[in-house]
């Protein structure tokens, strides 16, 4: 097992249940990424009742709230202690390569040989920044969400936030509120209300079965695995943070940054269509929810159906933005994340550096498994509570591979 985040610990739970001898190697502390690579104000996008791991349910007094990062760390820490996972923290994997027994795992604290290895190293290790970032004028500060902590640490002046998914919209809001005027570059995005008909949107996605949709059931797996994170924020007020809310606060929406030439960002003219697409897709989801309420005779239990105001877009949004005139002093690349496989020395990556796998079973590498990627096996795969079903399935596969029977 490589990685002692929630997914790695969930896998360890099922390995222990089957009495499969294993060890969990972690480069830092348990829940390391949650400790070191998240900004200060971040809360989970999923409500507390949904924070569950195999054998552990949320038992606090605020099931509808959203955990802060210290709360997430405490939650995963308590899980690690309760499951007595065989942990080796502060042990960094330097390389993994096939050997005669299976795999050789070289760490800065010894080398192991194992017939099977499960990679639970997270899906968000590196900021996925487009090549055009190299063309940003050198006078500007550039920041990734992994580096970003709080607006006060940014220089004064305007900020261009590139990307309007969960990360981009949350950072845009707090940076703008700090007195640094934000321009938000909007590409393809997923719009969702925080609360619909009186219930958290995650409640609806859970209850209607959307989150349980499997990789072999969706009609376009490539799209499902690359879908941007939804525009959501976890706040005590259960606020909806969409592009209209940001416009109301004074954030300026512009098109996707398509290129940077001579200090000017070229902005795509597709802003209106991308907003329209997101509105239509949200409405389709809300229609699905409404149908589900009707079919299940739940009208009396939830609020009346309604629709949200379409995303407001300027008649002619700007198609270029001067990055060199001093108005903007920082660019934040909220353009997504990708896993780091630089230590993985096996022929398991495709031409774009992505792991080739069939729902977590790594292709062409018997005994190698992956957990914790978007839509690995289900829509919920990237959420904390999604680890349980994926881990159970993968350990079923792993146990059959190593010839261990069902749990006793």
């Amino acid at each position, binding site marked *: 097992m490589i990685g002692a985040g929630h997914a790695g610990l969930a896998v360890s739970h099922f390995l222990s249940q089957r009495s499969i001898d294993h060890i969990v190697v972690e480069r830092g502390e348990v829940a390391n990424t949650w400790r070191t690579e998240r900004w200060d104000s971040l809360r989970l996008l999923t409500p507390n009742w949904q924070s569950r791991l195999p054998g552990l349910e949320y038992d606090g007094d605020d099931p509808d709230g959203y955990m802060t990062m210290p709360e997430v760390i405490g939650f995963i820490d308590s899980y690690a202690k309760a499951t007595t996972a065989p942990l080796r923290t502060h042990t960094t994997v330097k390389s993994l390569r096939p050997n005669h027994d299976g795999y050789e795992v070289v760490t800065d604290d010894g080398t192991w040989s194992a017939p099977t290895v499960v990679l639970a190293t997270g899906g968000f290790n590196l900021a996925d920044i487009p090549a055009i970032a190299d063309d940003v004028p050198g006078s500007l500060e550039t920041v990734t969400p992994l580096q970003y902590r709080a607006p006060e640490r940014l220089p004064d002046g305007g900020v261009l936030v590139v990307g309007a998914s969960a990360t981009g919209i949350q950072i845009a809001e707090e940076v703008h509120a700090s007195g640094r005027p934000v321009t938000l570059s909007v590409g393809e995005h997923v719009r969702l209300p925080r609360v619909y008909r009186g219930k958290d949107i995650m409640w609806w996605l859970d209850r209607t079965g959307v989150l349980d949709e499997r990789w072999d059931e969706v009609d376009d797996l490539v799209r499902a695995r690359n879908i941007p994170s939804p525009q959501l924020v976890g706040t005590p007020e259960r606020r909806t943070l969409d592009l209209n809310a940001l416009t109301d606060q004074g954030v300026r929406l512009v098109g996707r940054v398509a290129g940077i030439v001579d200090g000017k960002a070229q902005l795509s003219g597709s802003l209106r*269509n991308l907003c329209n697409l997101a509105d239509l897709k949200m409405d389709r989801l809300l229609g699905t929810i409404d149908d589900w309420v009707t079919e299940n005779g739940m009208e009396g239990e939830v609020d009346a159906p309604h629709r949200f105001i379409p995303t407001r877009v300027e008649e002619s949004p700007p198609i270029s933005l001067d990055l060199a005139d001093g108005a903007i002093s920082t660019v934040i690349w909220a353009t997504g994340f990708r896993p780091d496989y630089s230590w993985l020395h096996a022929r398991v990556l495709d031409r774009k550096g992505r792991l080739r796998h069939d729902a977590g079973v790594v292709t062409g590498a018997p005994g190698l498994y992956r957990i914790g990627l978007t839509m690995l096996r289900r829509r919920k795969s990237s959420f904390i509570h999604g680890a349980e079903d994926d881990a159970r399935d993968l350990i079923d596969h792993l146990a059959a591979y190593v010839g261990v029977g069902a749990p006793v």
Partner: protein
Amino acid sequence: MTTTDTPVNNGVNVQALLDARNALVDAPEAAQFTWKASTEWKGGTHSHSVVEEFFGLGDDQAHRTTFTFDADHPEVFASEDHGATPVEFVLVGLASCLTAGVAAVAQNRGIQLNSVTATIEGDMDILGILGGDPEVRNGFNHIKVKYDIDADASQEDIEALVAQSQKRSAVFDVITNPTNVTVEVN
């Protein structure tokens, strides 16, 4: 989405396109296409263009027949108007690309189209091309496309067709995003 008794037929072989996508993901070099045209000056602002061959799937390809296009400028530009204005070709390219996309997406979503009409307008300040105002660009300020679609589907589903078509359109991308252009003289 509407369920009909007869199978939806918009004349688009979606299965072939989906099969091609799956095949090309595994053989990305075959997905590299080069589109070609050749243009000959006829006199004045009149030119004659031929579209015949292209490259793709790892080999030279040809259209079933040679297509020709005459481009010129209208008489208000003191030209002889032997053909559509080049910028009108751009509008035709966008509208026909989006319309092909509407049909393909409709087929994929099981929506029967009965009629589809697009009208397209591109606003331009010609002081740009005339060099009369350095702050005015040569190209369009704004392009507007309007669709009238009769289909066996809800208004919402029809709007989603048009939105998805823009998302997958080559010409929409060409127009809304910058492209490096190299022009050389032999």
